[in-house]
């Protein structure tokens, strides 16, 4: 029997790695993949707590998070394709679309 705490700590480590990826990587697609990693870490904590409390509601919430992540990926990748078409690059540092 593994403690819930172990799962939550693992989830926290994965979340931290994901947030570092969002901040440090320059490839926009990598940034998106890091966001997916963060969502997954949160899902893992939700499932661990659902097991601890014996309530299936946590699983339902994970289900919704997966759905939202799928739609977010579809829209995000469409945005990246659209940006690549105009800027010919997906390097985050070269995208200054909002610059005055």
């Amino acid at each position, binding site marked *: *029997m*593994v*403690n*819930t*705490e172990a*799962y939550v*700590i*693992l989830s*926290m480590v*994965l979340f*931290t*790695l994901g*947030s*570092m990826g969002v*901040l*440090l*990587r*320059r*490839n926009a*697609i*990598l940034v998106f*993949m890091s966001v*997916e*990693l963060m969502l*997954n870490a949160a*899902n*893992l904590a939700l*499932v*661990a707590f*659902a*097991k*601890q409390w*014996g309530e*299936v509601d946590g*699983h*339902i919430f994970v*289900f*919704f998070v*997966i*759905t*939202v*992540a*799928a*739609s977010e*990926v*579809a*829209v995000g*990748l*469409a*945005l*990246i*394709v*659209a940006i*690549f*078409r105009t800027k010919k*690059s*997906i*390097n985050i*540092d*070269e995208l200054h679309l909002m610059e005055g």
Partner: protein
Amino acid sequence: MSIEVALFVIVGGVSVAAAAMMLLTENAVHSALFLILNFICVAFLYLMLDAPFLAMVQIAVYAGAIMVLFLFVIMLLGAEKVGQSAREFKWLAPVTLALALSFVFATFFAFSAGDIDSNDPVASGDPLLRVVHAASGFPEAVDVYGNGELLVSGLELGGGSDYVAVPAGDYAVSVAVAGDDPALALPLGDITLQPDSAQTAVAYGAGRLPSIALVNEDLSDTPDRSGRVIVFNAYSGAPALNIVDPGNDFLIEADEEVPVIYEALAQGTASAPELYRQRTVNWAVVPSDNPDNIVYRLRDYPITPGETQLLVIGEEPGGVGEGLRPMNIALVSQTLASFGSPSAIGASLFVKYVLPFEIVAVLLLAAMVGVIVLTQRGDVKPKPGRPTRRKVSRPLTSVIASQTGHDVHDLPELPRLKEPESAEPVGD
């Protein structure tokens, strides 16, 4: 170290290593493959957390659909490697590292101080109680009171109420003829209800003052193709009953050996819950002290998967002693789906969370429309009204000649088609 802890350490370590490698590799395709490995590890952890359905969804949707979309876009854009550019925010990397370390430190501190695992979930569910009226000495329909509060009203002899949720605790149960003054209720006895349980109170006895007994129900999921049966003996004509399986025989010979299903079930006691394969049985009820004398036949009694049955052997009112006419009361309740199974998730999703489900469906639809709008190219507009035709740059003969391999220079000059002035190439 148990095997579960060992598996957790291995799978968790692989998932963290895969996440780190995803951050460190330069090639975006390798990053995507490491992320798939991470997702598969997390799916394995879901399996260890009793969430088999989510594990399958994780592999199919995340590791399957979403990551294929990522790989597709990476290869479509040729974005495996992003060209090195002079970093404008040179302070970002050290600040990120400091933030991450402080986040890890703060959460570790919170975990060690909060002690998640000591917060054991309290048994919070109210117990479920139902009442069965099998007291032949009290043939009227009854109202049942617990501590003076009405629990069940109008319960006929031979009937069982639905489950009612009541607070846990001790109850002094009393019954009165239905519609009668509660002050005239006969006290039956005390019962104690534990939290998070399902119990059946059976009133039985041939005398004018019935007795009451509490049966612990087991509503948990049954294995495939089997049902659960609990037998309660409320029969007054014998001190104890056996239930035997004589097959289709009508009589049991004096020296015949028949399989005994339940042995020496005293009046007012219930058997332990037993699982049986799905079938119809022809059991017989015999007194323990006279096992050749069938007092009651359970003919074509069905055992259905996914159900818990409480089978009460009682007697019809009126007779005394030899004249007792036995009867059975079968109370069937559906078992609850086990934790984390697709049916449990579906039941919660479509009962408790219908509105969020619909909202998420609308969100998906909006995302689909948004993707179509985003990826549509705004600069392609077919010009209306102008006939478009492909510009032919070479005469037809030279095309044929180049495909058949003949030399066209020997042929006489052919008149060329006059091309329209305004013809434009169509398409990209």
